[in-house]
């Protein structure tokens, strides 16, 4: 790759390489060349070849590290090299991953308020809900899209699945713990009226 770049591809721009490196590490999903280009202001948007040259140079930079840059279907992503797999496996056995508070809040809102749209969840949480979070829950098959709301954009309506209930060993949603706060809040609402 490095050899190619000295022939036809433009000189690797060091600053560009650093920017692409930072973006690929910070993004939590693979990024395509087009997505990388879109990060730049319109007038400064680099050409495809410039991004590609930066990517090639990064592949070279990380050749001997424990992680490397790989191309997957949806773009480029830094990955742990396969020879490190046994160690990474030991790490996860030692320190099982945890869900973020934001994700727990999201699944809690879906469970107790279903069917809800992402917008509904955002409204209740008061902050935006990332696609990543929804995807994690869909991947885990804890939630599913039950319908689309007939409003502009036809947002998906999410509900919990049977797998979600199975995981928590519940036979129905009604078996979820009742929330005292919920009742207190409802009472308060009635008093205001």
């Amino acid at each position: 790759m490095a050899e190619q770049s000295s022939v036809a591809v433009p000189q690797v721009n060091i600053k560009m390489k650093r920017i692409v490196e930072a973006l690929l590490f910070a993004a939590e999903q693979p990024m395509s060349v087009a997505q990388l280009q879109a990060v730049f202001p319109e007038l400064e948007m680099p050409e495809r070849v410039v991004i590609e040259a930066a990517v090639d140079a990064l592949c070279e930079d990380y050749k001997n590290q424990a992680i490397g840059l790989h191309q997957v279907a949806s773009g480029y992503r830094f990955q742990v090299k396969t020879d490190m797999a046994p160690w990474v496996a030991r790490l996860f056995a030692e320190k099982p991953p945890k869900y973020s508070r934001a994700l727990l809040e999201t699944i809690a809102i879906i469970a107790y308020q279903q069917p809800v749209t992402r917008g509904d969840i955002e409204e209740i949480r008061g902050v935006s809900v990332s696609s990543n979070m929804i995807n994690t829950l869909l991947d885990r098959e804890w939630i599913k899209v039950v319908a689309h709301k007939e409003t502009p954009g036809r947002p998906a309506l999410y509900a919990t699945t049977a797998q979600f209930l199975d995981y928590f060993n519940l036979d129905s949603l009604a078996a979820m713990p009742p929330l005292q706060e919920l009742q207190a809040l409802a009472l308060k609402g009635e008093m205001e009226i």
Partner: protein
Amino acid sequence: MSDGLVANVGTVTAMVAGRPYLNFPDDLYIPPEALEVFLATFEGPLDLLLYLIRKQNLDIVNIPIAQITKQYMVYIEVMSNFQFELAAEYLLMAALLAEIKSRMLLPKRISTEDDEEDPRAVLVRRLQEYERIKKAAEALDELPRMERDIFIATVDTSKVNVHKPKPEVQLQDIVSALQGVLRRVDQLSHHTITKEALSVRERMAAIMAKLEGSDSFLFARFFTHQEGRAGVVIAFLAILELSKAELIEILQAEPFGELRIRARLGIGNG
């Protein structure tokens, strides 16, 4: 805080401070809402006092209590003239200032002079303490922090061919996450969380799933008689709830005809 607003109010007070009355000349009138915003920019009476001291370049370790008390009272009176709900702390501070001022008027008794502390000392120390926390909070806000300046480098581990265990979650984690949300909702009272029984929520989701991709169903198709009376009630409540949320439509082709349920069609794309 808006500089323009602060400057504005500052001018008014300067004009008013020297005078024993609080009638605003017409050209200096500030709408009460603006005063409210102004007051809202302060974190409490200490913050307001600090502002008054700093605005006049007074020395915090040797504040002229009479002068500062007079100005503070002007603000408080302006606020109460507009019938703002002043937090009790502001009134408490007014009382404290008045007390300090009156104690300073009293002749000191020779015998106790040594052990009697200057009545201003406690207040000045509190102001100093508060000011340094205020500065520390500003410095903290400037520190590089996650989400704004610090971004974690992440890599994909799914390709290393190891079984990555899924995070384990206890039901209690979900309940406490929701409780956290509810506490916040409580704070921002304009959001409402409805309190339908979960069985109704579950049925609502099931009905939507059934309607997805279908045209419509007869009303009766959603009632499962095997579940008995409770099941019928839950289905009925779920349908009413969905209708209220404008997710479904209940249609009747002719008077006394059978009711049909269908997913609601949007106005723009129906």
